[in-house]
């Protein structure tokens, strides 16, 4: 009878049958490309207007310091000393990871996931999405992120916007409105766009006027 190699280990050997091994599946590793860790940074000129049907608000437009060796003076060992010096000379302020409202998951504004080629870092208000191995735009908790920005201003981690900074932005908005009006004059189909932009500009200016009187802010 021919020897049956299936099932039990071969006689005279201790080699057990093993299950095939696989790399991390998509359930444990994102198909996103790895990216470096980062920290938020803030500049007194960087403000953005978040519009709403009942009125809008001015919130900081945060940038990021990428902890990527060789980028923005992050040195060969990952030290950000020189990077911080250059940033602070230019008026930026770097926010530590723990600068988040109480109750923020993990107590940090950054999250990390195993991903293709290393770790994918995103904000605490993002949920990376993928489908069929294809990377999709992350789902963003916009309300949560805006509340975080409000908290930063309220708690004094970010100074409230100065009139000069807002004037720079509102003047640019007025110039943009002029362009939109001119286009609507030539193309009646864009009249609705011009009306929307007029209304947005009015709300922006109202929010600007209301800015100094916003209560509950601690000045740093």
């Amino acid at each position, binding site marked *: 009878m021919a020897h049956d190699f299936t099932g039990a280990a071969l006689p005279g050997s201790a080699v057990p049958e093993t299950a095939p091994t696989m790399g991390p599946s998509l359930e444990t590793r994102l198909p996103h490309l790895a990216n470096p860790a980062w920290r938020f940074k803030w500049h007194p*000129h*960087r403000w953005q207007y978040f519009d709403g049907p009942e009125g809008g608000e001015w919130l900081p437009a945060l940038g990021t310091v990428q902890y990527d060796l060789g980028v923005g003076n992050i040195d060969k060992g990952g030290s950000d000393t020189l990077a911080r010096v250059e940033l602070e000379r230019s008026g930026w302020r770097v926010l530590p990871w723990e600068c988040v409202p109480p109750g923020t998951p993990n107590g940090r504004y950054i999250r990390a996931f195993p991903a293709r080629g290393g770790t994918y870092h995103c904000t605490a208000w993002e949920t990376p999405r993928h489908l069929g191995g294809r990377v999709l735009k992350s789902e*963003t908790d916009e309300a949560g992120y805006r509340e975080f920005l409000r908290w930063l201003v309220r708690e004094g981690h970010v100074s409230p916007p100065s009139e000069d900074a807002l004037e720079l932005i509102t003047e640019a908005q007025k110039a943009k409105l002029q362009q939109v009006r001119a286009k609507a004059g030539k193309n009646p189909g864009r009249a609705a766009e011009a009306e929307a932009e007029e209304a947005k500009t009015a709300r922006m200016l109202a929010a600007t006027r209301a800015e100094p009187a916003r209560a509950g802010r601690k000045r740093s």
Partner: protein
Amino acid sequence: MANEVLYSSSGDLRLTEALAAEYRLILADRFSLMGHPAIVYAGNCEQSGSTVIKVPLAGLGGYDRMAAVNENATSSNTALTDSSKTITVARQALQRQISDLNEMVDSLGINVEALIADGVGAYAMRWMEMLVSLVDDFSNTVGPGSGVDLTTDDFFSAQFTLMQNSVPGPYLAVLYPVQLTDLLADLRGEVGPWQLRNDVQDLFTAKGSGIVGSLNGIEIVQSSLVPTANAGADSAGGMFGAGAIGYADGLPRAVRGAGEVIFPAGTRLYTEIERDASGALTKIVHNAMLGFAELEDLRGVTIISDR
């Protein structure tokens, strides 16, 4: 009929699958602005004593103007305004290892030579990645608002910001692909003399990634490496003039003890080949020393719009 020689019964005579004669590249962003004149080359740090290069910024060449002085009056000194920015160089690397067995059976060109040649593309894209990660660093920002598509008006706002800061051209705009398609979509609704310009019409011609055209003399670059803003809801592209961003690099003077070292022309990349005879493996290590930093903030503007 019987005993036909069918494909399904010719398992010993046929292959389950055969390789095509050549391989195709997987879809990816492969465009780099390496060599573009808008990006300042600050030099190399070879034999300089530091991995940090300080770029001096001097208020000369018309920064201070002459002033009227009376015929017999004594003129006085005008202070020289100066500043500086630093660029720190760090090592960048890509390593691969291929076995002799795999090299031996290669029929496509995926072999040691291909892995060596891959270093140039890897270097160029790393260069681009380091550049693009800085376009979010300008203190001036324009945009339609978080979650709102980019429009031609925002493009003009960015251009006006640079013009108002007296930034000399040519300008370069780096946009995320969605930002670019949003711009094109809005461009379709433009009327008036601007729509008749050749550069405006030419922008609609599909060109893939990279430099997709120009508007008002501003070269527009599409890059999927543009960073996000507002917790991933938006993209932070940018528009800048020459002198906004600079880079520095370096090349080791001599790589002692190396097996084979290749220095691809036109780059600061060096590739070493290391042999592991006992494992029958060939290791290809690409190394480069590279650093990027923002040089002058007012020369650029960040464009934030829906991603």
